[in-house]
């Protein structure tokens, strides 16, 4: 089953999304109603529907457009894994209206020229593409990148992405320097020396499988460091990909003290555990690693509670050849743009771990607020970025049907419920349907 996409409007038309269940966490609204769009923006309801393009959303759910805080678009440099074009198609098919392109391209996005390149390349894309600039030059963790110039070119965050900034003094400078642009610093918390050659969570499963472990303390100790540095400097800390229960406790405590800190979690950490690695399936090799049931339960509760703000796909495409090797030799990472919404609906909303409002907050409002985007809510006047999905639609994950250029999903063959039916970006409506 493959989605096909049809462009229904070009952006200026008046559109009414009629009769859907509107879920808008910014106002707490969760009720059946209409959403009006005029001239590319959300509009007040109007009496006269004549001339408007009508989307019949009966039985559908209407979210403010989904925002992915962490997407590896791989262009420039790794176009065999993903391109801006294929990655944004995958995003739109998955219900996203905006993604943040991470800087681990080749060359890395550590200067304004590359920020502009990505934004230009994404000009005609199906979703908005924001850019996170590298915090340090070449993502090497040594010297500050030209963050000011990149800020002028429109970056929404700084991040060295999957490379932690090991040196505490460099991390301190990043927090301090970014304050003048009020940019969040998205950090992956990991003590690389403690991890060594680890390839999975350290515990009974690594013992059984004979694989080198990555202890939770390697994450928790750097979470502690970064919280202290954020407190010291007043910088905006965003912890990417929280995976350990101990990290959650520290984030909660930091919040209580009033330290500026936000966090995201991936869908795979909310659903899968290290027990799944029995098959040595390289599609489950991610960093931070899948951890225990206890960690997973803590992450779910923290997301519901808002201690963890957002769900980020951490969409990380790798080619078949790169992943089809023995476990230890495979790279870390999994794709997620085309499955995240449905995984959240199926595995978290349906069993009652999250309400629909909480799901919309985690997938849309929270990331939009952290990144200070004009998005995440259906308030009249804002750009019309809207996601409509069918919450009853059953489907089975089939990597061959992905728009993404890569196939490395940890959810291959999983039965999910919930599928994108319309995405609206700045008033431009795309309709998604299926061929068999």
């Amino acid at each position, binding site marked *: 089953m493959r989605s096909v996409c049809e462009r229904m409007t070009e952006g200026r038309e008046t559109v009414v999304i009629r009769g859907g269940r509107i879920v808008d966490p910014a106002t707490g609204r969760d009720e059946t109603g209409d959403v009006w769009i005029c001239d590319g923006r959300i509009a007040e309801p109007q009496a006269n529907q004549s001339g408007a393009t009508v989307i019949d959303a009966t039985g559908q759910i209407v979210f403010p457009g989904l925002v992915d805080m962490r997407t590896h678009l791989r262009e420039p440099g790794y176009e065999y894994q993903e391109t801006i074009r294929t990655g944004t198609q995958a995003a739109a098919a998955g219900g996203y209206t905006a993604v943040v392109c991470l800087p681990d391209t080749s060359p890395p996005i550590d200067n304004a020229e590359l920020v502009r390149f990505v934004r230009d390349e994404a000009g005609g894309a199906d979703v908005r593409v924001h850019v996170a600039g590298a915090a340090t030059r070449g993502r090497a963790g040594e010297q500050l990148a030209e963050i000011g110039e990149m800020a002028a070119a429109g970056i929404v965050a700084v991040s060295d992405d999957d490379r932690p900034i090991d040196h505490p003094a460099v991390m301190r400078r990043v927090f301090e320097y970014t304050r003048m642009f009020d940019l969040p610093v998205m950090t992956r918390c990991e003590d690389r020396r403690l991890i060594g050659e680890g390839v999975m969570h*350290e*515990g*009974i499963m*690594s*013992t*059984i*499988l*004979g*694989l080198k*472990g990555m*202890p939770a303390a390697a994450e928790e100790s750097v979470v502690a460091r970064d919280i202290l540095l954020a407190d010291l400097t007043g910088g905006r800390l965003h912890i990417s990909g929280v995976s350990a229960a101990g990290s959650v406790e520290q984030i909660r405590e930091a919040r209580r003290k009033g330290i500026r800190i936000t966090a995201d979690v991936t869908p795979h950490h909310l659903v899968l555990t290290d027990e799944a690695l029995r*098959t*040595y399936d390289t599609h489950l090799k991610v960093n931070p690693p899948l951890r225990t049931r206890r960690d997973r339960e803590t992450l779910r509760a923290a997301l519901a509670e808002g201690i963890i703000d957002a769900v980020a796909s951490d969409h990380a495409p790798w080619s078949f*050849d790169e992943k*089809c*090797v*023995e*476990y*230890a*030799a495979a790279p870390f990472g999994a794709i997620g743009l085309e499955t995240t919404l449905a995984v959240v609906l199926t595995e978290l909303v349906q069993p009652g771990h999250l309400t629909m409002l909480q799901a919309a907050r985690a997938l849309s409002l929270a990331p939009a607020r952290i990144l200070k985007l004009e998005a995440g809510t259906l308030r009249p006047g804002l750009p019309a970025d809207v996601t409509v999905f069918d919450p009853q639609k059953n489907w089975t994950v089939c990597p061959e049907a992905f728009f993404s250029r890569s196939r490395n999903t940890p959810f291959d063959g999983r039965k999910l419920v919930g599928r994108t039916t319309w995405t609206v970006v700045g008033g431009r409506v795309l309709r998604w349907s299926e061929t068999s």
Partner: protein
Amino acid sequence: MNADETPRLNRRHLLGLEDCSREEIRLILDTADSFKEVIERPIRKVPALRGKNIVNLFFEPSTRTRLSFEIAEKQLSADTLNFTASASSVVKGETLRDTARNIEAMKVDCVVVRHSASGAPLFLSQCLERAVVVNAGDGAHEHPTQGLLDLLTIRDHMGRIEGLRVAIMGDITHSRVARSNIWGLRTMGASLVVCGPPTLIPPDLEATGVEVTHRLEEAIDGADVIYALRIQLERQQGGLFPSLREYARLFGITPERMAHAKPEAIVMHPGPINRGVELDSAVADGSRSVILDQVTNGIAIRMAVLYLLNGGGEREDA
């Protein structure tokens, strides 16, 4: 042996002992017992696997395991080929999957694989459509034929496995031998205690049903089998223990320490031995040592495993 009566294993490959049932292990041990007689013959050859191709695919240096498999294969009349990584495709950057597919294209019946990556034999078995895979040691995961030959040796000397207390000493973290022994011995009803410095004991090991101690005397006390693992010098370089001297002082098995063991207790080691480190020479060569029996039993076990997995006996008339 008649084809109809040939007992079979309930599996296509032998990747580890973790999921082997008591019945399967007993079948392998009993089959190995019957092959022991062949090993003692003047002409040590049976036609059981005549016409079968077996490739020994060794991506990691090994002398004795490969030699043992090769002897077992030849005594079963299989045609054997050796492939060692350093000399071949790996240097050229070929993936394990491509190597596997090429081997299959050459119509090989069975692949005996040793690899430094845990899980590599499972991966290989997923890449192969027809050939049987025998794990000859993968990373720190499993070394099932070693576990089986150890079980056979224990059964030979003690008359049983169930109810025995087995103490495994040394580097458990990096040891596939320890893991296969833990699974095999647990399944056969032995109780286990492992002993080593905490830096060489993997996390949550107790969850596999073994006791853990860091005091050698405690492990030896009451043990029927004392199994020493090889300690590798690179673990010292990796900072996991301070020196071989200190290791020997804390965990080396000496005649004095053996005085605390049961009088009938046996001493085992997977080889090669670091004499004077994990095992004192007087113990290694002493009356309680069954280390060379392990080596001999290795051939019988490998014959049994290859025979059972490759449908041996089926075409004896051919």
